[in-house]
C-alpha cells in the first residue's frame, strides 16, 4: 500500500485530503485511509493526464470534501449529529495543513482562544485570591486609569467587579468557544478554493 504524502501533492490537495479525513472521522481507520489514498491517486492521475488542468478544477469535480465524504458513510437519520471531542482540533489541523493560505484564520482562532484562557485564568484567581484581581479604576497623575487583571503595582485603585468577575469570565470563554466553532464550521463548509 502506498505511503502519504506524495511528492506531487500541492497545498490545495493537502487541505482537501485533510478535510476529507476529518469528515470521515466516523469511518473505520483502515477504510478512511483507503478513501484518502484513492482520492489522492485520482487527483494525481487527472493532473498527470491533463497537466494544463488546475488541481482546484479536479477537486471541484469531486465536490466539497464534506459532501464527498458523506457519500461513503452510512445514511445518518438526523443531519445534526452531536459534535465529538477532538472535532475542533481536527478542523484546526485541516486548516494548518493549508500552509500560509490559511494562516490568517489560524491566527484569529489562536487569538480568540488566548482571550478565553486568560478569562478562565482570571476567574480561577478571583476564587483563590479575590482581593488581587479584577477591574480596577483609579485616578492617577495622567487622569482616570482603568486596569483589567491584577493590581500588582500597588497603585491606589478601586476594584469594581468583585465576585461578578467569575460569571463574566465564564461567559467570555463560552462565547469564544461557540464563535470559534461557528467560524470553523463556516470555513469547512466552504469549497477548498474559497478558503482565505
Amino acid at each position, binding site marked *: 500500500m502506498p505511503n502519504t504524502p506524495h511528492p506531487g501533492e500541492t497545498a490545495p490537495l493537502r487541505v482537501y485530503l485533510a478535510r476529507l479525513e476529518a469528515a470521515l472521522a466516523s469511518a473505520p481507520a483502515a477504510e478512511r485511509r*483507503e478513501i484518502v*489514498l484513492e482520492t489522492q491517486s*485520482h487527483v*494525481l*492521475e487527472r493532473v*498527470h493526464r491533463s497537466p494544463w488542468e488546475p488541481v482546484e478544477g479536479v477537486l471541484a*469535480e469531486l465536490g466539497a470534501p464534506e459532501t464527498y465524504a458523506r457519500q*461513503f458513510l452510512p445514511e445518518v437519520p438526523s443531519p445534526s449529529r452531536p459534535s465529538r471531542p477532538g472535532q475542533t482540533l481536527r478542523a484546526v489541523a485541516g486548516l494548518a495543513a493549508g500552509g500560509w493560505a490559511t494562516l490568517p484564520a489560524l491566527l484569529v482562532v489562536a487569538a480568540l482562544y488566548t482571550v478565553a484562557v486568560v478569562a478562565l485564568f482570571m476567574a480561577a484567581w478571583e476564587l483563590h485570591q479575590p482581593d488581587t484581581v479584577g477591574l480596577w479604576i483609579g485616578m492617577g497623575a495622567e487622569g482616570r486609569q482603568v486596569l483589567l487583571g491584577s493590581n500588582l503595582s500597588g497603585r491606589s485603585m478601586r476594584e469594581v467587579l468583585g465576585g461578578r468577575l467569575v460569571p463574566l469570565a465564564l461567559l467570555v470563554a463560552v462565547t469564544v468557544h461557540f464563535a470559534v466553532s461557528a467560524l470553523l464550521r463556516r470555513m469547512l463548509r466552504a469549497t477548498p478554493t474559497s478558503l482565505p
Partner: protein
Amino acid sequence: MDLSPWKSQLRKGAAELAVLATLERKESYGVELLERIQSIGGLALSDGSIYPLLNRLQKDGKIRGRWVEDPDATHPRKYYALTAEGRELLAEMIAEWARFEAGMREVLGEKVSDVNA
C-alpha cells in the same frame, strides 16, 4: 421541463451495472473506468460518485481492489476486479436489465424507434 432529478435516478441505477460490466472485461482503476464509461453517450458518471460506488461494491464483496505501481504513472493506482460474487450479481443484473428493457420497449412501442430513426 426539468428532467434532471429523473435523469439522475435513471443513471444511478445504470451506473452500478455499467461499472460491473466494464470491470468484467478488464481490471481497471477509477479514472480508467470513468473515461471508458463517460465516453459512452448518455451515461454521465461523475468523478465524485464513482468512488463511493466502488467502495460500497468492495465492502459488499462484489469487487476487490489492489494497489499497483504502474511504470507509466508517478503514483500508485487502485485496480478493481470482479469477485465470483460480483460475476453472479452482474449476470442477475443483466437478466433483469433485459427484462426491463423488453418491458419498456413494449410500453413505449414505436415511440422509441421514432427517436432512433
